């Protein structure tokens, strides 16, 4: 072998060695995140489709899919169409973990979206180690304030205002309207209720009677009857119920049976007429006159451009289903998810999606009547509520005939009248 050839060979070897080293040492950026192809984005949701918490909530995935299909029919997101894999967790946290694992490991979704319930969301986050694996959990359907804490849940984003926010705003309402009344509170005895207690404390509200219930126990016949006995004994004139809809159903039905009259004030989670109707349509009129809270336009508000669009989309996708709060919730969730995916751009990655929500989320279009609170330090969605009264058919309409929205935070900030004007909906809601 000539000297020149040896030198060429040595140089070639060196080049090949460096190339091999470089290729091996590069992080795996060449491969895309799971759940993505050049033409599709796969998202996953686990939600109670059956079980004690399913009435009403089981409409959410169908509503989400209806909006995603609408977006897909209009070109998708940056050329990619969205598919939604739906799993039934029956509101059992252990099952929710198993279903989330299926979504992540078998279905290989790009992100989770719309996980429902504080307990299930917590269980999934802990057991599947979303944060460690960088898997986004978008717009969880729970108002537990902890999920907005970026340090604790770096890849999770809320969509609802926190329960603390709701309780603070509710507290102002109670002070303004019922300052001289005997107050009672029925609340779910977990983080949901603990958030509410913190919010009421911030608002300076003390109840004469506190009735905690363990989540799930509201389905037992004796539970609701026991509440009403305690309320009767206390002479409560205004009763706040900070719990799920099945708890509202139990309370209203037992109050009716016992002919116990009180001014009901229902939290946003528990005041859903459709969910109550799913248990027994006869219970819906029991809502009549109760106060309720919401942060989205009323589903019966035909003047709202988002509601009009959502109604139109849903009527085509699910012509036999009623358009209600749960549909608005599902379609709003999907709408926000599309906003986030669009904002991330064509070079879609999990890390990029999280960053897009943190940096641009506060300015996303949304159907909500409050600003969004997303930032690099807080993963909070909507930030306020309006108060309304339930009519005989269970429809919630704003007091005073217009949406008077109050906003606050999950800490010590005051409750203030919001001056937020919701920007116009993007053309065709896309």
């Amino acid at each position, binding site marked *: 072998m000539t000297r020149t050839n040896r030198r060429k060979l040595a140089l070639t070897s060196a080049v090949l*060695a460096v190339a091999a080293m470089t290729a091996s040492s590069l992080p795996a950026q060449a491969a895309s995140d799971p759940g993505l192809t050049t033409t599709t984005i796969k998202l996953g949701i686990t939600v109670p489709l059956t079980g004690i918490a399913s009435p009403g909530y089981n409409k959410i995935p169908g509503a989400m899919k209806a909006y995603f299909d609408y977006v897909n029919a209009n070109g998708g997101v940056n050329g990619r169409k969205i598919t939604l894999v739906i799993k039934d967790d029956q509101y059992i946290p*252990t099952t929710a973990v198993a279903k989330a*694992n299926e979504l992540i490991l078998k279905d290989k979704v790009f992100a989770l979206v719309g996980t429902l319930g504080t307990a299930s969301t917590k*269980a999934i986050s802990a057991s599947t180690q979303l944060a460690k*694996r960088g898997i986004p959990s978008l717009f969880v359907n729970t108002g537990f304030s902890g999920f907005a804490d970026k340090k604790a849940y770096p890849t999770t984003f809320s969509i609802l205002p926190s329960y603390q926010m709701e309780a603070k705003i509710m507290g102002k309402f109670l002070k303004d309207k019922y300052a001289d009344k005997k107050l009672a509170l029925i609340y779910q005895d*977990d983080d949901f209720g603990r958030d509410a207690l913190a919010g009421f404390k911030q608002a300076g509200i003390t109840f004469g009677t506190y009735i*905690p219930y363990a*989540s799930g*126990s509201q389905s037992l016949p004796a539970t609701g009857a026991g509440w009403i006995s305690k309320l009767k004994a206390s002479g409560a004139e205004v009763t706040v119920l900070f719990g799920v809809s099945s708890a509202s159903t139990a309370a209203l039905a037992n109050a009716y049976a016992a002919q116990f009259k009180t001014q009901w004030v229902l939290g946003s989670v528990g005041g859903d007429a459709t969910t109550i109707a799913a248990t027994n349509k006869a219970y819906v009129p029991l809502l009549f006159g109760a106060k309720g809270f919401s942060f989205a336009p009323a589903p019966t508000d035909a003047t709202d451009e988002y509601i009009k669009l959502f109604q139109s989309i849903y009527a085509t996708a699910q012509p036999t289903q009623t358009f209600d709060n749960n549909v608005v919730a599902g379609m709003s969730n999907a709408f926000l998810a599309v906003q986030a995916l669009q904002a991330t751009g064509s070079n879609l990655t999990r890390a990029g999606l999280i960053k897009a929500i943190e940096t641009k989320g506060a300015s996303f279009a949304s159907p909500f009547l409050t600003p969004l609170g997303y930032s690099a330090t807080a993963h909070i969605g909507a930030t306020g509520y309006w108060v309304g009264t339930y009519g005989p058919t269970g429809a919630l309409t704003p007091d005073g005939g217009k949406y008077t929205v109050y906003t606050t935070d999950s800490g010590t900030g005051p409750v203030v009248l919001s001056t937020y004007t919701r920007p116009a909906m993007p053309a065709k809601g896309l």
Partner: protein
Amino acid sequence: MKISLKSRIVSALAVTALAGTVVVGAPTAANAAPQCATASFVTQCGGVGADGAPYAFIAAANFNGTVFLYSHGVRPAIDIPATLAPVGPYTKTNAAEPGPLAASDMSVINKLVAAGYGVAGSGFSRQGVNATEALAANKELIATFKTKFPTTKTVIAWGESLGAMHSQMLAEKNPELVDGVILACPAANPQDALIAYFGDALWGFKALFDPSIKVGGYSTDAATRQGEQLANIGKVLTVLGKLSAGLSSGAWPDTASPAGKALQAAGIPSRSALLLVGSMAGIPTRSKHVDGTSGPAGAAETYPLAVAPAVAILENMGTVGVAGSLLIADGELLTGGKVFDNSKTDYAARVASDRDIYSFAFSGNSAVDAMLGALAATPRETADAAAVAKIPGLIGLKGTIAKPTVIMAAESDEYTPASIAQWYIDGYDAQFAAAKDAAIAAAKSSRSYQAPVNKLVMLWAKTAPKYSKFTAAGSPDLGATIGAGTGHCNYTSAQYIAAAKMVAGAVNTGKFPNQGPIVTAAKKVGLSYDKKFRVPTFKSLA
């Protein structure tokens, strides 16, 4: 006669030759040469090691140079009477076990020997916590085997439960003797987490259900200590029986502590307190017969939320309470003092993440707060510093993986929790990342990049979403087949053979195959190879 034909004859006959339990007339003198007998081309040997521990080994005429050195799992160091059924009757034994399942099923040994491998195992001179004795016995057995079979080139150390600790310890302390490792349902005690697991459970039972239950402080007198252990097992079993009887009504055992009785008076059901103890210790909330997601007819939706987690803890606590009583007592004997310490444990933090997940089963936040408050009435345990200092020398492992290693672990193992496997995985991830960095750094000067080779394959026995069966009365059917991924060391012969083939192949070729063939091989025997699957770490290490 051609080698291939001879191999076929040997293979056929070896199976027949080993149809029964390994029985060879063993010499009684320690250190004497093994006594061997050959029949149908299969040589079985038995002997007694320098420490008096019996051993056995087998190889056939087609021995290929690789021996599987097996370490059996923990055996109680004391006799247990029939009055403590189902734990007893048990008579202490040091019988040699040359392979997994050997006590009841020779199929693993048969298949390995027929394939040309050797198998060997000691009974160990000490039962209970015996890592020191096992290390010595295993080293000696390797030498003895090699003397009898001088063509031995490769040793694969494998073991289950405490035996897996012995195999790993051999690989760490004597890497020159081991070429491959298999750890089945491994025991390990990173930062005393396993001691804490058993101790927290027993202390919780003491604090709430029976103040006379012992957590530590066993007598140094052998007979007294044995009596104390047996009494403790009896108390744990009695409490479990009463908790079982009170599952529906919420009734507390009559032995409950004053704090427990106050909780009962406050309306908190005993099953919520049982779940609290499980949550404090990190006991799995899925057990052999309780999947946590199913319910009996008429309660399919509420049972998983309200009752199932506590029932799973009840079933798992049978193992935890008994094993804890035996192992902590043995640990104190070996170290000369108390080894469990919860003087600084924050039990509120331990249960924080479970409070909402199991809210109904806990009877709500207020009940959790009340139960945590009740714990304050029971004095904490303080370990002896000198005793604790001895623990690493007795059972300490680094967890480093230097040879091709397969780990098999069940997602809901109540004896050696899956957190141990996760500790190995996390440690190896860091080890591999460091090796990669070192290789890149080395390549900068040598201009030749040698990528590190993966040496760990983690095979999970995962649980299925639903597997519970219920009796007509609505209780879990304890006679039903146990759920996959639950219980301790419930591996099939096919699973052991698959692991053996994987490691033997890796030792032969220098590396494990790519992901695809491993996934296929694992799936074929009901295991899962998924590098993205994770389980929670020990609560005491979180």
